[in-house]
């Protein structure tokens, strides 16, 4: 029982990372109706910028806010420069552009900041939380920040005119344009938001996995899996999906005899595929119904 609890808590801690990533994935999916394969590399780049600012002596929270703002602007710039001209190209051509962006950012990180592993500070400390061995303060802080970001986003999309306009632009661009929404800028805004959320995620993850150009790759895969499991149209679902992936992975590694330790990622993916067989649009996803 103790072991089970411990594994679930460890899974939650990993899951918080995946949930943050899944949230960013879903955000951009809601804003532009595509998955962004370069999301993780954008977050890594932001984290490197944060590391540089800290190295220059900025206090943590000032660097944090600066990086989030810079990432927001950067995300908008990427959309305006790279993806607006490709707006009419097929989805697959845009996919190549995502892969190209991935490749450029990854290689650029390595060129500017080299490939050595760097430590990244945490504002929460790493003491055990309430003297418990299950979870430390940084992990708790990570879970807390993920939930706060989720609430903010939920409020933004549900409660503000801008959020409503963004949802409309993603779901039905033609009609949205007809009612006077500037669809192109809504998409750019979505990119900015996703880049900013990715930056928050990157800065929270970096103390755990250490900073290096490929830091985000594995995390992004789990994040995608979590987002798909929860349903790509549901931010709340993505967070739950991310936590679920973390827990399933940990439990499979501990409790599935013989093959569990080596194949825990495979098992996690098989579980996800099995869930999707029952709920093809993810657990909390909305089935899209189209007129014929």
């Amino acid at each position, binding site marked *: 029982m103790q072991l089970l609890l411990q594994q679930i808590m460890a899974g939650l801690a990993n899951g918080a990372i995946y949930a943050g990533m899944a949230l960013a994935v879903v955000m951009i999916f809601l804003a532009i109706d595509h998955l962004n394969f370069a999301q993780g590399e954008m977050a890594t780049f932001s984290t490197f910028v944060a590391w540089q600012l800290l190295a220059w002596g900025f206090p943590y929270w000032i660097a944090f806010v600066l990086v989030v703002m810079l990432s927001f602007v950067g995300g908008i710039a990427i959309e305006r420069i790279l993806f607006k001209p490709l707006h009419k190209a097929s989805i697959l051509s845009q996919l190549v552009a995502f892969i190209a962006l991935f490749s450029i950012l990854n290689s650029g990180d390595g060129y500017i900041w080299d490939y050595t592993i760097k430590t990244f500070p945490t504002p929460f400390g790493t003491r055990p939380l309430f003297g418990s061995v299950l979870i430390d303060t940084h992990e708790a802080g990570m879970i807390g920040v993920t939930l706060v970001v989720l609430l903010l986003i939920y409020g933004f999309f549900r409660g503000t005119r801008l959020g409503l306009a963004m949802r409309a632009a993603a779901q039905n661009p033609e009609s949205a344009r007809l009612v006077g929404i500037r669809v192109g800028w809504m998409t750019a805004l979505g990119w900015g938001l996703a880049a900013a959320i990715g930056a928050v995620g990157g800065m929270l993850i970096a103390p755990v996995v250490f900073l290096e150009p490929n830091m985000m790759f594995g995390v992004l895969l789990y994040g995608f899996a979590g987002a798909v499991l929860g349903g790509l149209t549901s931010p709340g679902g993505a967070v739950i999906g991310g936590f679920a992936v973390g827990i399933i992975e940990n439990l499979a590694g501990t409790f599935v005899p013989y093959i569990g330790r080596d194949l825990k990622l495979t098992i996690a993916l098989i579980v996800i595929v099995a869930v999707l067989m029952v709920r093809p649009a*993810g657990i909390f996803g909305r089935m899209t119904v189209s007129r014929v």
Partner: protein
Amino acid sequence: MTTPQQETVPFGAAAASGARRPTWPQTRHWVLAAALAVAIAAPFFFHGFVIFQLTEVMIYGLAILGLNLLTGFNGQFSVGHGAFYGLGAYVTAIMMQRWGIAYYWTLPAAGGVCFVVGVLVGLPALRLQGLYLALVTFAAAVALPQLLKFHGFEGWTGGVQGIVVDQPDVPGFLPISADQWLYFFTLGVMLLMFAGASNLIRSRTGRAIMAIRDHPIAAAAMGINAPVYKTLTFGVSALYTGVAGALGALAVQFVAPDSFTLFLSISFLVGLIIGGMGSLPGCLFGGLFVLYVPNIAESVSRGLAGAVYGVIMLLVIFAMPSGAAGFVRHAAGYLSRWRNPPPEPAGQNLAAPQNAYIGQQQAAGFAVRQPPGIVEEQALRITAQEALTTAKQERSRKPK
């Protein structure tokens, strides 16, 4: 509709209006023959490493063809074809090195194993679409290296160490080097499989496969058994990529789990899109791109090789949004209109919807087969439209 005689007017008019120019099918035969001659002569003009690279281009082209059958012709996404490639490579390596079977027998076996696994992976595809389907194939791509490293299978797979594969012997009567022999062997297999794919997509089955891509509901309304066709396409696609993997094992003479990661799958996808969706020659262009461009990027700047590769990818996509095949098609169409302005067609009522259809398909990034298939496709489509209209009327008549 007009009488048969009037229907032939556009073609007759074109023939009568001045000097006959060779039509595209004739030109295509010449282009094919010339390409084949170059392909056969090439290994006698280059040395070992270049021959190896050209062999690899053909192998990647074949793997991309497998992906194209699935994505380009059937409209199903896969980010996991590297797994089938790896599986084919391992089947060959295990059969040759563990069981001592001759290399040429391993190709059908690799294809068969991949077909079966492909059908199994394709089963969830019946319920899932788009990104959700991509996750299933993604699971295959992530799982394969882990399974290959798994200690329970080490007796077969050699674990992390992988397996060294012997180079195929040159048949005694041929005075050529081992590299050249492998090149010709690969060329032969590739031609056979391209011919097979070409026949497949021109057949009734091929039209059914494409109808499912273009309009799944209409296809189903016409009585196409979508689940069967979709799973079989998945299997055949995996078979092609698996055979490519088997050839790859022979060419590289080494298989290891880390050669078959997600990056390989993504390379295939890049090659497919840059070569051109739904185009057979485009696959070979994709193979060229995937093999040579990373090398070129590396020679430009070692530290920024990835960035240079990315920039080249972007430039290519900006210049040719529908891939090399689409680019060539547009260029050829432009050229032929410029040299040979079309006469006012008498059968315009027939031509207009065809062109609209072609435009629509090209806009979606797919290659479009020119006549004679188009007439049948169009007939099919009209039936589908009628079936749909009937279905809609039926539904609207139902009380709410």
